[in-house]
């Protein structure tokens, strides 16, 4: 059981780290603000999400797990909103 849970942590956290890598590559390589924003949201949503999923088996009880998931949900909510707002700033910078 222990081994299975550890394996789960390793797989999920690695997948999360991969999405951070993908997000950074996108930030560095994509041509304009909107596509870069698209790359960034992958790190936000999937990168952190998978890292949280990976850490769940190691959480301190139900409350700890609940807190971990709340962090992810808060970041999802905030990043979705802020990305919208950033995109509007970017669009105006383009048209200006």
């Amino acid at each position: 059981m222990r081994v299975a849970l550890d394996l789960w942590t390793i797989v999920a956290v690695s997948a999360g780290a991969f999405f951070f890598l993908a997000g950074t590559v996108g930030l560095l390589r994509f041509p304009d603000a909107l596509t870069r924003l698209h790359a960034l949201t992958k790190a936000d949503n999937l990168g952190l999400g998978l890292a949280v999923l990976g850490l769940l088996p190691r959480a301190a009880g139900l409350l700890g797990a609940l807190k971990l998931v709340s962090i992810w949900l808060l970041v999802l909510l905030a990043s979705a909103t802020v990305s919208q707002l950033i995109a509007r700033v970017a669009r105006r910078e383009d048209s200006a």
Partner: protein
Amino acid sequence: MNAFLVLAASFILAMVALGLVRTLRGPGDAERMMAAQLLGTGGIAVLLLQGAGSGMPAAVDIGLTLALLAAFASIAFVKGAARSRRDGSQLTDL
């Protein structure tokens, strides 16, 4: 296992650092705000992994605080950038 978590934290930190180099340089305000956003998320991921790896349960509480305040700060940044264009135009459709 703990070594793996700290390694993952270091890797994500390096990715965030690379992204920061790109976004802080601009050219526009939009990129700079992405820097704050990227660090908010990446910082939380590093904090949680690092906390789990070094056995500090309080890291989750710090992550919770960071998640709330990073959201607040990002919003304040967008609002400030929207208010402060040199041409005086406002972002009205927020």
